[in-house]
C-alpha cells in the first residue's frame, strides 16, 4: 500500500523535475558563464533518484506480493520464486515502461557527468532534448499505463506471470535490451544538439562514439539473450525466426552498426557529417518504432502485453512529434562543412566504410519491408498475410558474399587514398579458403556453387582477421575481434543450417523408435511437484549412428497460476553439436509428441556474438588503438 503511494508520487515529482530542469537549463543557456550551472546537475540527479525510488517501490510491491497494486495482481503470485517475482516487475507493459524511464534518466545523468569537457551550450541542448523524451515517457506512463493503480477489494492471490517468461535469460533480457534501446536516445539528443551548435566535428565524434558503443554492445547482447531464450524455451529449436518482434530489434541494430562505422570516419576525418546525424535520428526512431509496434498489439507475440489502442496512439503521436522536430532541426540548422567534403579517393577507408553502410541500409530495407508490409496490407485491404523466412534468406544471404569480401579487405585500406597491400598473400588466403570449403562441403549439399562461394567468403574473412589477430598482436584489436566474431557467426550459422538434422514422431512410454541413423528409446516418465508447477519428466535414451548413448530428460510443466502447460527442452551441449529433445502431450492421448534435433555448432553462434560485443567493449575501454 505504502510502497504504491511512494512510487506514484515519486513519478509525479520526477515529472515536475523535468519541467523544472527545462526552465533552469533554458535560463542557463542564455547566460554567459563558461561552466554549466551546478543546479542542473543536482536536479538531474534528484530526478534520477525519484525514478529509482519509484522503480524500487514497484519491486517491493512485487516482492511483498502486494495485490492491492493492479499490475502485481495481474503478473505475480505468492508461490512464485523470489527471482521471478522481481523479474516480473518488468515482465509487463507498465513495469517495462518504468524501466525505460529509469534508463532514460540514468543515461542523461551519466551523460552530464561524462561530458564535462564539452561545450556548455551543447550539453544544455542535449539535456533539453533528452528531457523532451523523458517528459513524453512520464506522461505516457502516468496517463495510459500507470504501474501504481489500486485494486479494491484487495484480492488474496495474483494471476501469476506467464510461465514462458519465468526464465533466467528472459529475466535479464529486457533490461539489457533497454539499455541498448535507450542508449540511442542519448545519441539522438546529442546529435540534434550538435547540429544546432554546428558542433558535428571530430571532437563530437570521439565523444559520442562511446555512447554509440555502449548502446551497440547492450543491444547486441540483449538480442542474443532473446535469441537464446527462444532457442530453448519455445521449443522450435532455432535461434532466429524472422518474427516481426525479432526484426524490430534487429533494425536499430543495423543502423547502429552503420553509425558505429561512420562515426570512425567522423572522428578521424570530420566527414560524412550529415549522414552521421541522419543515422543517429533513424536509429532512435527505429528503437521507438520497435517499442510502438511491439507494445501496441499490432504485432502478435509474447511481447504483446495488452491491446490498448490509447497507448498505441500516444506512442504514435509522440513518435511523430519527435521525427518532425528532428527533421526541422536538421534542415534548418545543419551546415555541411564544405572545406573537406568529398575529399577522398575510390580506394580508401572512407569508401569501404560507405560500402558497409550501403549494405547495412540494404539489409535494413529488406527487414523493414518484410516487417511492415503485412501491417500495411492489412490496413489497406484487410488481407492477412505473413512474410516467411525464405523472403529474408533469399534477399540477404546472397548479398553476404560481397559483404564478407569487403569486410575482409576494407579494414586494410588507409584513409584518403590507398592501395591493396600484400595482394599475393590475400589471393593465397582466398584460394586456401575456397579449397578448404570445397573439401568440407562437397558431400553435404546440393547447391554446391552457391555454398562454396558463401562459405569461402566467410572463411576468407575468418583467416584474414585471424592472421591480423595473431600477427599484429593488439593493433586495432577491437575491430579485428568484432570482424573475426562476425566471420565465426556466419560460419556457424551456415554449418548449423547445413548439418543439423531433425526427427519428429509420436511415441508411447516404453516404445522404441528407429530412424535411419539411430534409435530413440522412451524409457519412462516421472512426475514431480514444485511450488508453482507440476512436472512430467520423460526419460529418453538416444543411440546415435556411432552407437553412443545420449540420455535426455525433457519436461512438461503444468503451471498452476495461471494454468499453462510449457515444454522444457533438454539440451546436451558440446562444442560440436547440441542434442535437443522436446516433448509434448496432447490432452487425452497416450502418445507423446517429440522432436529430436541435432544442432551443429550451436554454441559457436553465441560465442561469436559475444566475441563481436567483446570487440565493442575493448574499443570502449581503450580508444588508444583506434587510429
Amino acid at each position, binding site marked *: 500500500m505504502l510502497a504504491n503511494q511512494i512510487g506514484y508520487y515519486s513519478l509525479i515529482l520526477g515529472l515536475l523535475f523535468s519541467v523544472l530542469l527545462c526552465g533552469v537549463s533554458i535560463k542557463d543557456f542564455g547566460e554567459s558563464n563558461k561552466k554549466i550551472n551546478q543546479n542542473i546537475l543536482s536536479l538531474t540527479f534528484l530526478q534520477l533518484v525519484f525514478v529509482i525510488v519509484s522503480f524500487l517501490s514497484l519491486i517491493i510491491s512485487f516482492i511483498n506480493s502486494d495485490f492491492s497494486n493492479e499490475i502485481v495482481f495481474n503478473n505475480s503470485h505468492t508461490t512464485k520464486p523470489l527471482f521471478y517475482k522481481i523479474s516480473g516487475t518488468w515482465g509487463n507493459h507498465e513495469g517495462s515502461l518504468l524501466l525505460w524511464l529509469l534508463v532514460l534518466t540514468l543515461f542523461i545523468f551519466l551523460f552530464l557527468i561524462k561530458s564535462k569537457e564539452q561545450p556548455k551550450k551543447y550539453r544544455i541542448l542535449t539535456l533539453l532534448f533528452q528531457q523532451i523524451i523523458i517528459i513524453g515517457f512520464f506522461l505516457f506512463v502516468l496517463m495510459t499505463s500507470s504501474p501504481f493503480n489500486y485494486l479494491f477489494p484487495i484480492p488474496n492471490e495474483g494471476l501469476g506471470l506467464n510461465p514462458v517468461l519465468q526464465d533466467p535469460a528472459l529475466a535479464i533480457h529486457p533490461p539489457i535490451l533497454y539499455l541498448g534501446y535507450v542508449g540511442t536516445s542519448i545519441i539522438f539528443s546529442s546529435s540534434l544538439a550538435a547540429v544546432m551548435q554546428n558542433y558535428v566535428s571530430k571532437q563530437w565524434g570521439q565523444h559520442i562514439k562511446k555512447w554509440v558503443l555502449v548502446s551497440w554492445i547492450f543491444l547486441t547482447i540483449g538480442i542474443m539473450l532473446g535469441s537464446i531464450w527462444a532457442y530453448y524455451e519455445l521449443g522450435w529449436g532455432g535461434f532466429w525466426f524472422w518474427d516481426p518482434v525479432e526484426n524490430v530489434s534487429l533494425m536499430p541494430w543495423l543502423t547502429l552498426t552503420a553509425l558505429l562505422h561512420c562515426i570512425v570516419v567522423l572522428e578521424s576525418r570530420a566527414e560524412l557529417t550529415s549522414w552521421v546525424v541522419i543515422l543517429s535520428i533513424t536509429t532512435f526512431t527505429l528503437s521507438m518504432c520497435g517499442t510502438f509496434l511491439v507494445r501496441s498489439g499490432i504485432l502478435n507475440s509474447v511481447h504483446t502485453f495488452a491491446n490498448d489502442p490509447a497507448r498505441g496512439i500516444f506512442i504514435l503521436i509522440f513518435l511523430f512529434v519527435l521525427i518532425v522536430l528532428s527533421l526541422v532541426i536538421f534542415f534548418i540548422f545543419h551546415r555541411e562543412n564544405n572545406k573537406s567534403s568529398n575529399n577522398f579517393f575510390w580506394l580508401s577507408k572512407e569508401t569501404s566504410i560507405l560500402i558497409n553502410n550501403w549494405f547495412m541500409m540494404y539489409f535494413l530495407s529488406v527487414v523493414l519491408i518484410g516487417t511492415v508490409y503485412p501491417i500495411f496490407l492489412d490496413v489497406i485491404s484487410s488481407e*492477412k*498475410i505473413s*512474410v516467411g523466412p525464405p523472403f529474408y534468406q533469399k*534477399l540477404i544471404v546472397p548479398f553476404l558474399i560481397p559483404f564478407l569480401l569487403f569486410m575482409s579487405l576494407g579494414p586494410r585500406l588507409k584513409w584518403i587514398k590507398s592501395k591493396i597491400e600484400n595482394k599475393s598473400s590475400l589471393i593465397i588466403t582466398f584460394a586456401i579458403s575456397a579449397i578448404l570449403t570445397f573439401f568440407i562441403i562437397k558431400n553435404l549439399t546440393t547447391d554446391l556453387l552457391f555454398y562454396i562461394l558463401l562459405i569461402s567468403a566467410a572463411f576468407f574473412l575468418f583467416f584474414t582477421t585471424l592472421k591480423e589477430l595473431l600477427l599484429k598482436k593488439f593493433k586495432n584489436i577491437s575491430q579485428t575481434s568484432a570482424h573475426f566474431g562476425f566471420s565465426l557467426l556466419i560460419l556457424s550459422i551456415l554449418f548449423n543450417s547445413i548439418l543439423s538434422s531433425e526427427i519428429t514422431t509420436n511415441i508411447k512410454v516404453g516404445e522404441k523408435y528407429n530412424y535411419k541413423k539411430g534409435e530413440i528409446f522412451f524409457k519412462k516418465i516421472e512426475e514431480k511437484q514444485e511450488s508453482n508447477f507440476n512436472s512430467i519428466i520423460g526419460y529418453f535414451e538416444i543411440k546415435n549412428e556411432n552407437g553412443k548413448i545420449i540420455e535426455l530428460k525433457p519436461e512438461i510443466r503444468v503451471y498452476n497460476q495461471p494454468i*499453462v502447460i510449457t515444454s522444457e527442452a533438454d539440451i546436451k551441449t558440446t562444442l560440436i553439436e547440441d542434442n535437443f529433445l522436446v516433448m509434448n502431450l496432447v*490432452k487425452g492421448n497416450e502418445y507423446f509428441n517429440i522432436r529430436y534435433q541435432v544442432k551443429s555448432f550451436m554454441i559457436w553462434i553465441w560465442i561469436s556474438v559475444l566475441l563481436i560485443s567483446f570487440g565493442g567493449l575493448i574499443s570502449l575501454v581503450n580508444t588508444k588503438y583506434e587510429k
Partner: protein
Amino acid sequence: MYGRKVKLRFVLLALILASVVLTVLLVLQSLKENVVYFQSPSAIKSLIELNKKKIRVGGMVKEQSVFITSDEVNFIITDFKNEINVVYSGVVPNLFAEGKGVVAEGFLKDKNYFTATKILAKHDENYMPPEVKEAIGDK
C-alpha cells in the same frame, strides 16, 4: 561542356539510381513469392481454384477431432460455418488443444484436406490471434 567532376557525379547518380530500382524490383519480386496468405475454412470453401502456394489456415480445433497416430496428428479446424481436415507430422505447440484457437501453415490438398508443415505456437492461453478472431466471427 560539362566538367569531368560533373560527369563523374552524373554517372555515380545514375549508378545509385539503377541499383535502387534493381533492389526494389528484387525485393518486390521476392515478396510476391514468399508471402503467405491467411484464410479461414469458409474462405477456402469458396475458392474457385486451388492454389499450390503455401497458406495459413486459422480457426478453432474442433472438439473430439484430434486423433494421433505414431507419425501423424490429425484434427479439424472449424470456424463454426465450415471446417477442414488437417494432417500434420511434427510437434504441436503447448497450447494446442481441442476447443482452442490454432493457426496451421501448409498446403491445400483439396478443399477438405490440408497438409500442415507448421502449427504456430501461441504463448498465452487467453490470447487469440487477431486473424482467428476474425475468422470465427464474434464467438
